[in-house]
């Protein structure tokens, strides 16, 4: 395989805090190929922002290496660092536009600081605004735009320096679902048309599923699992992944049922069949479903269901055995 565009080697980031330290990244290694849309997903506090901020040196890792095109960017200083940052653009959840400058001036900013002649820069600004569909807003100020429009301006601005990589830190998290769709479509379009490698950070699996080719699950500063999106979604191996996709509860203790119950985990290891109906028939029990969170992927059910269990020990054993025989993972849960 060719040299990856971005490679992280055993990246660590430790923040000193009063009375100790926070390990935000505990040794992260991953490779991002040129031209792909790479997703990094994780719960809040997993270290996603820290990771992406290290990639363009907004944050400095405590240890490890970051290679872009084989070059260790942690050694870069001054002008070299500036040059690297122009190759690696970034957009943010809060857009971070210059509020006192018009849309056109915002998009022109990266060109201004790179010393591009004014006429040439203005022409490029209009091209960029066209790509993001905001030609008519050139003279508006950010305060006059909607969230989605602001993110489009931020994208145009990020593209101004002709970057090879676009880093997106929760770029759609402040937007409504419809606007999220349009921004994701734009990112995909940019990736395909301009060949820009995109790194997407999110806590929403829908974002990953929609545009990413590969995904890494970040959990507590470590990569829990990594692979193609299909593979990771269909054959989720890590507990962190299962929690993230709703197959396991986020927190066992918060999820205690009021009565003895059974948690049934559908993790794709079973063909589509009416399990509950069979259970009712074959074990002769009345099934009371307490909660369910199941979705289909490739026609297989994923997720979990909580059903009420009878008080009788023998009946309970029978139910567990029946479901195990069906290839389902189950766990008995008791009220607190």
């Amino acid at each position: 395989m060719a040299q990856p565009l971005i490679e992280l080697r055993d990246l660590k980031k430790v923040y000193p805090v009063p009375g100790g330290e926070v390990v935000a990244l505990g040794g992260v290694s991953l490779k991002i190929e040129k031209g792909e849309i790479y997703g990094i997903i994780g719960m809040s506090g997993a270290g996603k922002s820290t990771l992406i901020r290290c990639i363009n040196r907004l944050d400095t890792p405590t240890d490890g290496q970051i290679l872009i095109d084989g070059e260790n960017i942690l050694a870069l200083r001054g002008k070299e660092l500036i040059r690297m940052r122009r190759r690696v653009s970034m957009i943010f959840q809060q857009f971070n536009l210059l509020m006192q400058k018009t849309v056109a001036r915002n998009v022109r900013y990266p060109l201004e600081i790179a010393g591009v002649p004014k006429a040439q820069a203005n022409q490029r600004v209009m091209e960029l605004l066209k790509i993001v569909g905001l030609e008519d807003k050139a003279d508006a100020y950010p305060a006059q735009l909607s969230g989605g429009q602001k993110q489009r301006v931020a994208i145009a601005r990020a593209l101004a320096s002709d970057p090879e990589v676009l880093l997106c830190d929760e770029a759609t998290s402040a937007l409504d679902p419809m606007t999220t769709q349009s921004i994701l479509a734009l990112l995909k379009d940019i990736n395909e048309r301009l060949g820009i490698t995109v790194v997407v950070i999110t806590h929403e699996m829908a974002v990953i599923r929609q545009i990413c080719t590969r995904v890494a699950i970040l959990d507590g500063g470590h990569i829990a699992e990594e692979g193609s999106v299909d593979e990771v979604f269909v054959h989720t191996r890590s507990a962190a992944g299962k929690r993230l996709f709703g197959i396991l509860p986020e927190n066992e203790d918060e999820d205690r049922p009021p009565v003895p119950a059974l948690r049934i985990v559908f993790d794709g290891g079973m063909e589509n069949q009416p399990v509950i109906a069979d259970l009712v028939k074959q074990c002769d029990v009345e099934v009371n479903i307490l909660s369910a969170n199941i979705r289909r992927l490739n026609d297989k059910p994923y997720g979990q269901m909580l059903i009420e269990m009878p008080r009788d020990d023998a009946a309970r054993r029978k139910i567990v055995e029946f479901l195990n025989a069906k290839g389902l993972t189950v766990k008995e849960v008791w009220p607190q």
Partner: protein
Amino acid sequence: MNWNQIWEALAETLQMTLPSTLISYIIGLPLGVLLVITRRGGIRPMPTFNAVAGAIVNFLRSIPFIILLAMLFPVTRVVMGRAIGTVSVIFPLTVSAFPYVARMVEGSFNEVDNGIIEAAQSMGSSTFQIVRKVLIPEAMPSLINGFAICMTTILGYTAMASAAGGGGLGALAITRGLNLRQYDVMYAASIVLVILVQIITMLGSYFTRKFDHRIR
């Protein structure tokens, strides 16, 4: 009452206020920038320099103007040619005001959203570019508001100039009103001062709003 003396005094007041404000900003604005960018977590952290500069600013700010005026007499004599008089007072006024300006400017820059500065950094801006093209333009409305406040503060200080033989409306009010019991002159001078402050404040708010594009 002779109105001419009021107008003369007004001219003297402006003669002290405007240069002092201007010079205070020439020193205080860069100093404020330095205080912001060199602090821990700033875009050019230099903690030792920041601590020293901060201490000097705080020291100068804590000396009451009237005392600073007296303390500076020998220095003023060297710098301005003579220790007393309307023009000479510009020196102590500036020394007293520039630390105030620096803190004011620092406060304005602190209001700029850190995310915007990070975005500018992520695009490959140099420190100077961030200051010139991000910090100052983004803080502009607040800087203008601060400018008006600093100017009215300096205007207030000029009233104490009479202690160093300076003229102006404050000196007129004190010498005529207090010492000679010409109360009409005192009130007239005070009213002109009040009007002056009002005008500066109004212009300040007007331009603050005019330059703020965060408002729809």
